[in-house]
């Protein structure tokens, strides 16, 4: 076989690599307010344009404009802002603690705080969430105790998951928060099943799930969309396009040829692109989709358009595959800054209040951390008693696990 030179087939490449200047000139950013808002019961076939639009509310002057403005009260917005700030402080501290080896692993949500926090605000507290590993903001928004989150992350004696899971793989039935899986996209079709059972029970509760744009290449994406479409399940499916899947830019997941929201079209499901760094837009789109679900009209796919501000996880170094600080050039900005400026802009918040709150969060997180490690750490313990390792595999321990536990002498 003689190969001629040049690439034999198309292999997508991001066009900007370490050392290059960030360049987002190819990203078209529609004006806030430009994308129309259809009726909640609009047929999917009549909203296909939204798969190519971008639901945005906050304009470049930080004003809320256009049909998607959810008209939230200042207090609601301040709550959202505060939760986003708290989430960021939490992430920061956890990352630092991982660097000092108190956690085995961590994943931040920098730049994606609105994705989770605004969604949590738009859904009912008893709606069931099937998150992936970057929606900690929604768990915080639902009032999960930070100390409990930390105790989980360091697998100590108070970890509600008994040390069985990697950090950030929270599960909290009390918060209607499903168990985060390390396997990508598996929870997407499960959420649909859960939602159908909710219909079956004539319950008003809906389900919502999140995956990344990279994960949307998995077969389970198709499973979820097919189920949701066929049975018209009451579910809000979020596809968080944060541009990167570890080192792979979104073109490797199909993003070069169409928007991710456009995938919904073939299922007869509305697909909306949403500015993920705009708290109000995420809120409004989620609300629209949630209403649709709750009124049993059907499922929605939301492509939440954002940017992963940090490394994928503590296991990778993004400066090896993308320009340093690319995030700073992200045309949709920082969700916290944008909401903050909006609130400041109409006098409901101030820079001082913001800094005070941030410092309080930092302080609170630090204090909580100290308390949490008082209950043990991953490295030094105490952990859940060792015999618990053999429990919960089945409802009752079968003979072979009993033997194994005895063999270990616990």
């Amino acid at each position, binding site marked *: 076989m003689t190969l001629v030179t040049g690439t034999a087939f198309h292999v997508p490449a991001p066009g900007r690599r370490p050392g290059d200047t960030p360049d987002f000139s190819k990203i078209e950013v529609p004006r806030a307010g430009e994308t129309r808002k259809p009726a909640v019961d609009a047929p999917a076939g009549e909203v296909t344009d939204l798969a190519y639009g971008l639901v945005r509310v906050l304009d470049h002057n930080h004003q809320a404009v256009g049909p998607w403005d959810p008209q939230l009260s200042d207090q609601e917005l301040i709550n959202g802002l505060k939760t986003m700030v708290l989430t960021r402080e939490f992430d920061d501290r956890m990352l630092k603690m991982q660097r000092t080896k108190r956690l085995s692993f961590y994943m931040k949500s920098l730049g994606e705080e609105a994705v989770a926090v605004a969604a949590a605000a738009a859904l009912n507290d008893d709606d069931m969430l099937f998150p992936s590993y970057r929606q900690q903001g929604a768990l915080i928004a639902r009032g999960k105790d930070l100390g409990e989150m930390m105790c989980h992350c360091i697998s100590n004696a108070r970890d509600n998951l008994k040390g069985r899971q990697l950090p950030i793989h929270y599960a909290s039935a009390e918060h209607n928060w499903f168990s985060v899986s390390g396997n990508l996209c598996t929870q997407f079709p499960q959420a649909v099943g859960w939602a159908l059972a909710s219909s079956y029970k004539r319950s008003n509760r809906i389900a919502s799930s999140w995956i990344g744009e990279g994960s949307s290449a998995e077969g389970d994406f198709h499973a979820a969309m097919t189920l949701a479409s066929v049975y018209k399940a009451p579910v809000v499916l979020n596809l968080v396009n944060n541009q990167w899947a570890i080192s792979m830019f979104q073109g490797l997941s199909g993003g070069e040829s169409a928007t991710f929201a456009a995938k919904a079209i073939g299922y007869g499901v509305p697909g909306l692109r949403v500015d993920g760094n705009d708290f109000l837009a995420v809120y409004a789109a989620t609300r629209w989709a949630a209403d649709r679900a709750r009124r049993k009209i059907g499922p929605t796919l939301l492509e939440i358009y954002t940017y992963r501000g940090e490394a994928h996880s503590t296991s990778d170094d993004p400066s090896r595959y993308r320009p340093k600080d690319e995030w700073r050039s992200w045309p949709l900005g920082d969700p916290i800054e944008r909401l903050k400026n909006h609130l400041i802009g109409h006098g409901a918040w101030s820079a001082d209040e913001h800094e005070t709150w941030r410092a309080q969060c930092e302080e609170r997180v630090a204090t909580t951390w100290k308390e949490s490690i008082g209950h043990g750490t991953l490295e030094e313990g105490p952990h859940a008693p060792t015999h618990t390792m053999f429990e919960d595999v089945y*409802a009752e321990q079968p003979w072979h696990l009993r033997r194994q536990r005895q063999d270990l002498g616990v």
Partner: protein
Amino acid sequence: MPAMTMVQSLNAAIDEALAGNDKVVAFGEDVGYFGGVFGVTRGLQEKYGLDRVFDAPINEAAIVAMGMGMAVNGLRPIAEIQFADYIFPGFDQVVSELSRIRYRSAGQYTAPLVIRTPCGGGIYGGQTHSMSPEAFFTHIPGVKVAMPSNPYDAKGMLLAAVEDDDPVIFFEPKRLYNGPFDGDPHKPATSWARHPRGEVPEGAYTVPLGVGEIVRPGSEVTVVAYGTMVHVANYAAEKTGVDAEVIDLRTLVPWDVDMVTASVKKTGRCVVLHEAPRTSGFGAELAAQIQEDCFYSLEAPVLRVTGWDTPYPHAHEWSYFPGPDRVGRALKQVMEG
């Protein structure tokens, strides 16, 4: 007590489950209006409605995941995978999700899903309608694995599976759907009507998971089998005149180690059987554990009679299937050991 085929007794079990518990739903490819390609859910959609017995898109991952999501939300779903050969697109959902949800959530979430699927050979189904993939599932902590060998057990075990708080992979040896089969394809087909275990009580009853049954008491050698191979074992014992004690394992995880070891300690010899390929089949686990637990009672090595380590062939069905001749040879061999 009415005589039933295994298809009928499974149908009766699902019927009972649906009638007795609002939370039970059944679904799968062709399961709804048509009642399944083998008829196991026939008539049930009509009886219970579109939202309790329904068709599912052809995506086995979707079927498992939907069932899991429903089970997490309090239902007791019974999912059908049309042939065990087609369960693999859903394998990840079983290995990574269904089996672990109780563990990884520390008991906050559980998924009591039953996955029913016809398995096994002897029907000229070729390599994609004949597989016995049970061993794969026995290597997954967190799921139970069961396989009945007759209509009576089928109904009772399926009802036990639906009641069970853990996920159960429920294999149905399709060669036994319509009658017992002793491994000799040249004999005229027999019907369950003339088999004692073809008598199936009406109403709900359970045959507990995890408990085997000595279907043929004997003193010379213990034969451990499940599914179709139980009948082959009986026939081989009869044909060879070896006084074999045949144990129908019924549940593979957790299997009835007490029954098996007691028997092997008594007989001093053991042959394990299955249709699946030999290498890393469930027979390996059985043989490994039995030799460990019964080593000082064994007078010969534990032998395995299994399918070959090839895909399941079409024309060579009866050279592949571990029939009474091969089992008989093993019985004799182990007696000489």
